[in-house]
């Protein structure tokens, strides 16, 4: 909201208080000031000139050559094209070098051979209105040579207040409300407002009927003889300062009253209203009306209408209708000032996307005593400008409203305890008094009466009064204290420790980068990962169409930027810890199931043809996960599980693991589905091996812990030997490992696969697996005999697997 410094001065004496100081104080005590700017700053560069002489331009009919005196003795020659320029006028002169609105810089020039040393400005050139038929003629007494704003006494500052910080303060939506705050802050008096209704004639009251509970008060004041004359300068300047374009006295006064005391109002052409008068009713479902902005609006039964008879003439509290527009020849007016239900106004205005100065105020819960004051304010101002207007009848005033003023018992000790400062009762009472509250002694403090302007919503409980005292006393004057209460040490946070352990391990040795992603997943990505058939929590008002699903799984998020990342780096390792939502098993309250998940992606260019068996993404990611589980002090999971795989996993090159017999695997791991790899753009020069995994944090949290017991260091030397077996391709490596364990029962300290080989010399469909084996006993030194025994047994076991021991 824009506020004029000069306008505020109409309600409270601001002498000695600079606009800057005022803004600082408003920010610290009342509401956030977002900006402070000079009003029309170019008006201090443009000076008052006196047209000493005007001659016809020798070479142009429509141009005048003027001698303009600027008070410094000399006169400037200025060529002017305006028809209304005349000798003796005071005019606004922009000298060479002056920059006018629109970044228009005035330069010396020659116009048809005559040098011109500046410009005589029109209203429009100064961005003060639309008039451009001629130059702006200033009042005769304007001081020659002075800046125009100073000469006219219209130097002003525009204060911008953050609307959000006024959400709870209906009383601050007009200058008088802000001025009342300043009066309290500076302990100055608020000027009285002369707003009693002028005398009116004895005509019967204007017919008025309220048929809706959404209108609690409606005042209709008939006015005769009002004319749409241009507004006087004082009014124009104030409206201009807060960004309103002056139009005519009727429109301008209506705006002025709203901006002055915060009460929206509306004028109708009374001559065009039906004889039944005004009816306030809810719209009929599907009823239509055309608003002043020429939009056809389709209405619901919850919308409130002002009707002439049955014909809608305004969308109540939001915008007038086209049919009731005040025409230029209107002299019979009807002024509407009303109180509407804030929720109804807000709903209609939000639904229609029609936010107006009026609706913004009504939805804040305006004071229902304000309409009569506003009607009187309007009537008196109009009468001052146009003494011939008359009010043929007393205002019709209907509605089932009540004065919201009420009382709150305030325990002053509560104020001190909440603010943490020993404020005297007297000081508390004084602050409340300055803010316009009535204060009388009461048990443990005061009974505080809340004036209607503050009583609709803002001040309803004791704590609201604590805030009033605190902000005027200033929060900066409160002490700083540390809390003294004893708090038990927070319980250990297993989940957070787990998360940190994972992050550190992955970002450390495993060299993964941690990603945090959006929770929304695009339809396109869901389609690609084959998840579009699954249930998702859906956003009904997404920012981007097609981005309306809340992810079930973190993995697709990690794939979103995989192509971009692979373009930048050969080796891309990413992980994310985040949440997934599954709506198919909601809680009792309907909340979707929330999963805490860890996703991992590792992509590199394809492995070389004859790379080692463990130099592939899947084996290495498997290694990372195994190490991670180990580092988290968990028992190794059971990797044997055969469970349904997510659609993004390679159907064959993948595996799952669990610790407990759950219906879902704790870990899924594999290569990315090959079709998906291509669909993600990872082909041709970006062709990649991609291994992915997703791990349930809940499963990790409930997984059994490793005992952590120390293993004694072997005291007896061991025997290191290498064994190689050749087997059919189908025989799993695990069978060989089992055979090693069994052959050397109790003395196999380590068995490490170091080579997988396929080739002609061992036959097609066969592979060779080679292991480093360490045989070691805790109780004796092993001998050649032990080694021979192991080899013999091993050979037998391998034979049972259909394999043979390779020698040499």
């Amino acid at each position: 909201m824009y506020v004029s410094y000069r306008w505020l001065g109409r309600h409270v004496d601001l002498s000695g208080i600079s606009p800057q100081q005022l803004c600082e104080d408003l920010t610290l005590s009342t509401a956030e000031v977002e900006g402070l700017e000079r009003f029309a700053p170019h008006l201090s560069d443009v000076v008052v000139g006196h047209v000493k002489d005007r001659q016809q331009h020798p070479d142009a009919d429509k141009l005048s050559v003027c001698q303009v005196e600027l008070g410094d003795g000399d006169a400037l020659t200025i060529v002017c094209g305006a028809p209304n320029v005349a000798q003796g006028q005071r005019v606004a002169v922009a000298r060479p070098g002056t920059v006018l609105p629109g970044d228009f810089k005035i330069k010396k020039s020659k116009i048809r051979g005559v040098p011109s040393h500046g410009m005589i400005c029109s209203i429009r050139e100064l961005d003060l209105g639309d008039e451009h038929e001629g130059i702006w003629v200033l009042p005769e007494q304007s001081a020659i040579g002075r800046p125009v704003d100073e000469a006219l006494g219209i130097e002003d500052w525009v204060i911008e207040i953050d609307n959000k910080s006024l959400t709870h303060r209906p009383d601050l939506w007009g200058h008088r409300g802000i001025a009342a705050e300043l009066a309290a802050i500076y302990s100055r008096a608020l000027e009285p407002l002369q707003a009693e209704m002028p005398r009116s004639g004895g005509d019967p009251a204007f017919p008025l009927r309220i048929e809706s509970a959404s209108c609690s008060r409606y005042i209709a004041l008939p006015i005769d003889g009002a004319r749409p004359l241009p507004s006087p300068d004082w009014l124009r300047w104030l409206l201009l300062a807060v960004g309103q374009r002056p139009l005519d006295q009727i429109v301008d006064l209506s705006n002025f009253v709203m901006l002055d005391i915060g009460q929206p109002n509306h004028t109708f052409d009374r001559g065009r209203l039906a004889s039944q008068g005004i009816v306030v009713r809810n719209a009929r479902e599907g009823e239509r009306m055309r608003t002043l902005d020429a939009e056809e609006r389709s209405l619901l039964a919850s919308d409130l209408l002002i009707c002439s008879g049955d014909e809608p003439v305004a969308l109540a509290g939001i915008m007038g209708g086209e049919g009731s527009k005040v025409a230029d020849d209107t002299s019979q007016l009807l002024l509407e000032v009303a109180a509407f239900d804030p929720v109804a106004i807000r709903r209609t205005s939000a639904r229609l996307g029609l936010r107006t100065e009026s609706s913004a105020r009504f939805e804040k819960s305006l004071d229902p005593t304000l309409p009569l004051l506003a009607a009187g304010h309007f009537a008196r101002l109009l009468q001052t400008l146009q003494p011939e207007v008359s009010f043929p009848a007393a205002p019709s005033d209907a509605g089932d409203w009540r004065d919201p003023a009420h009382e709150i018992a305030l325990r002053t000790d509560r104020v001190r305890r909440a603010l943490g400062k020993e404020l005297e009762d007297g000081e508390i009472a004084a602050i409340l008094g300055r803010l316009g509250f009535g204060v009388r002694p009461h048990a443990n403090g005061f009974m505080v009466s809340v004036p209607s302007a503050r009583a609709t919503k803002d001040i309803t409980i004791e704590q609201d009064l604590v805030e009033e005292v605190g902000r005027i006393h200033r929060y900066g004057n409160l002490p700083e204290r540390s809390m003294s209460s004893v708090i038990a040490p927070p319980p250990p946070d297993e989940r957070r420790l787990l998360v940190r352990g994972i992050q550190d391990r992955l970002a450390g040795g495993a060299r993964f980068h941690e990603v945090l992603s959006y929770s929304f997943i695009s339809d396109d990505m869901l389609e690609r990962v084959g998840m579009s058939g699954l249930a998702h929590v859906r956003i009904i008002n997404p920012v981007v169409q097609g981005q309306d699903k809340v992810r079930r799984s973190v993995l697709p998020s990690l794939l979103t930027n995989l192509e971009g990342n692979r373009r930048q780096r050969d080796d891309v390792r990413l992980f994310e810890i985040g949440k997934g939502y599954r709506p198919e098993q909601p809680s009792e309250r309907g909340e979707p199931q929330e999963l805490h998940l860890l996703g991992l992606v590792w992509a590199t260019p394809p492995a070389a043809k004859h790379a080692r068996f463990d130099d592939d993404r899947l084996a290495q990611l498997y290694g990372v996960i195994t190490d991670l589980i180990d580092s988290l002090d968990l028992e190794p999971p059971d990797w044997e599980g055969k469970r349904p795989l997510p659609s993004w996993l390679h159907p064959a090159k993948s595996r799952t693991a669990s610790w407990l017999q759950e219906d879902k695997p704790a870990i899924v791991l594999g290569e990315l589905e090959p079709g998906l790899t291509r669909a993600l753009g990872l082909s041709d020069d970006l062709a990649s091996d991609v291994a992915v995994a997703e791990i349930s944090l809940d499963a990790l949290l409930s997984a059994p812990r490793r005992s952590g017991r120390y293993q004694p260091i072997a005291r007896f030397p061991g025997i290191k030997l290498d064994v190689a077996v050749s087997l059919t391709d189908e025989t799993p490596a695990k069978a060989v490992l089992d055979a090693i364990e069994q052959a050397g029962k109790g003395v196999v300290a380590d068995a490490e696969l170091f080579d997988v080989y396929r080739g002609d010399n061992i036959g097609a469909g066969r592979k060779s697996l080679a292991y480093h084996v360490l045989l070691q006993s805790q109780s004796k030194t092993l001998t050649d005999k032990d080694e021979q025994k192991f080899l013999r047994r091993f050979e037998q076991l391998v034979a049972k697997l259909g394999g043979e021991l390779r020698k040499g």
Partner: protein
Amino acid sequence: MAGPDREFPLENDEATLERAQQQILVCQDSQALKAVEREYLGKKGVVARLLASIPQLAPEQRPQAGKTANQIKQAVAQAIEARQRALDAATLEAERSGAGFDASLPPARALRGSLHPLTQVTRELEDLFQSMGYQVLDGPEVELDYYNFEALNIPADHPARDSQDTFYCDEQGHFVMRTHTSPVQVRAMERLTPPYRIVVPGKCFRQETTDASHDHTFHQMEGLVVGVDISVAHLIGAMKTLLRGIFKRDLEIRLRPGFFPFVEPGFELDARCPFCQAGCSVCKRTTWIELLPCGLVHPNVLRAGGLDPEQWSGFAFGLGLSRLVMLRHGIDDIRHLLAGDVRFLEQF
């Protein structure tokens, strides 16, 4: 390789010694020196042969001959050792000269992963708060309208809902993407027994168009303290401690009125801009940066959490983690945070 096959005393002793010393002096490395050593002191070397020839001498000549041979042996050994020391010293000297070393070569690239900057700042704050007795809680991102709004004293049709730009998850409006971490306030009150102090880091959502300074998804940290007679003075104290933790120094702060329906009184907390003295782009030339909204917990919120406002009071605050990360690292576009670009991530 052995020396010429000479019989003792073809050459006089002095000449033998002199020849040996000269051979030693011209040796340029240990290998050559070893060869000389073998020639004179080896099993079939000059000295060995001298000693072997002694029995053939006249008995009276033998002691002198033996003595001479030993003198030659010692003198050669000493000369070799001296030469070896000289060669070692020269080698060290040569190494020290650093010939061929280019100090401007880049370091070998140390490979590492990274923790997201939001994780880093969240951890720091969690640790700071935990040291002050706060526990860290978590709450759902898909939230009931009740916790996100109703329980926080923001009923349906309250104008404050406007500024929240909510993503709705169903037509009935029962579920929203939480617009702040504040819903965990009442969730915590339902679960915990006062007094307590909690912080809640997490993701929040606003239905708004994104640009360099706005994203529809961002991170916040909620704080809530519930106890007896918790006052604004306590809030000021806690916030100063917090800022000291974040900025590693004392910053002047100011509280000014701010409207949030779930606190009363409510404040905006500003801190003196840590980046300038006289105004900069970060503080928009005001020397103050708006850091966090906070306030005393509204009695309606305490009631929603099952607490009696006559007995319990508290304060709450909401810290913008995304904004803090941006301030700390000078990040000029919030959208980098959630874009998952390794070129961004690997910097942290």
